[in-house]
């Protein structure tokens, strides 16, 4: 096995392990979040982003890693994002958690995984048309929030941490 594949497998294994331990792979947790009843997924996700944002900006500042922003192309993000949300609510899993759920024995995730492969094939078929009609219509490029807002990264991260902590207090008080 090549180094890239081995590293991918190891990273995925650890990621899947943590997702399972956080109990965020479950259909009822995903729907629980969408129905605003159980915020486990938000707790997991926001904690990961809080820690990740500090770590990755330290590494980037030290010149160890480089950022890889996806392009801020408004129409595909809005339309694709909305379609993703609709499908997510019906499926009960996102792409990564569908595989993890299968690993937990929730074999109904197989339907979702098959649908996702079909959806990817369908997208590849539709791509030439979408590229002509939709993609790149209002594309602001590969930018980060510090390029959009009049704020450098660290104050944005500090504000984000503050907002997340407030949200966590709210979740715990409401027992969400």
């Amino acid at each position: 096995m090549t180094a890239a594949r081995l590293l991918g497998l190891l990273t995925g294994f650890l990621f899947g392990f943590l997702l399972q331990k956080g109990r965020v792979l479950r259909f009822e947790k995903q729907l629980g979040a969408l129905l605003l009843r159980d915020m486990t997924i938000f707790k997991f996700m926001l904690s990961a982003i809080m820690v990740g944002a500090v770590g990755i900006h330290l590494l980037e500042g030290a010149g160890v890693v480089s950022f890889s922003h996806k392009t801020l192309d408004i129409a595909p993000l809005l339309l694709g994002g909305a379609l993703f949300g609709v499908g997510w609510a019906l499926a009960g899993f996102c792409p990564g958690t569908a595989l993890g759920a299968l690993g937990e024995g929730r074999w109904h995730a197989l339907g979702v995984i098959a649908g996702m492969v079909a959806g990817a094939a369908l997208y590849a078929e539709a791509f030439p048309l979408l590229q002509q009609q939709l993609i790149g219509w209002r594309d602001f490029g590969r930018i980060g929030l510090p390029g959009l807002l009049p704020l450098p990264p660290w104050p944005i991260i500090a504000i984000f941490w503050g907002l997340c902590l407030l949200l966590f207090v709210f979740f715990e008080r409401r027992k969400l």
Partner: protein
Amino acid sequence: MSRRSGKRRSGDGWNPYLAGALAGLLAVASAWATTAGLGRTSYLGASTSFVRAAAFLLRRAAPERLADNVYFQGTGAVVDWQFMLVGGILLGALAAAFGDRSFRLEAAPPIWRERFGTSASKRLSFGFLGGLIAMFGARLADGCPSGHGLSGMMQLSASAWLALPVFFAAGALVAARVYRRRTP
């Protein structure tokens, strides 16, 4: 049995804040490891690998369609770092579930059964439809909750900060329509 484990908050599994924080550390460590080991920074993501899976199937079923398609030329039938990562998620979840005995063979999840009954084929077909729509959307938006949600948000990518609220808003609207019973 599954009711009880569904209702319990802590006691089963780890504290979600802790598990999430460790996932954040993993995401950072992975960015470092791919840069140092593979020469290029890669961020955690999942949905691109579904395009590769589709390419593998098409290569067997209709190789000429695969060759003709522009999109597959960029993302073809290759087992790369992310493809293995997605496979690793399955194995890691399997190991964790066996480790704490939370592995359950489940044909239809509890919230689903309350609303749609116990039919496995019904759940599979709705899941298929949902998965299809979700993946079409994720490819159009160029990312899913891993790529945009975790990797994009932590880099403070503007695209991620737009995509994630849209994912959630659309999902919450549909979930409320499908699952919320009107109780007086």
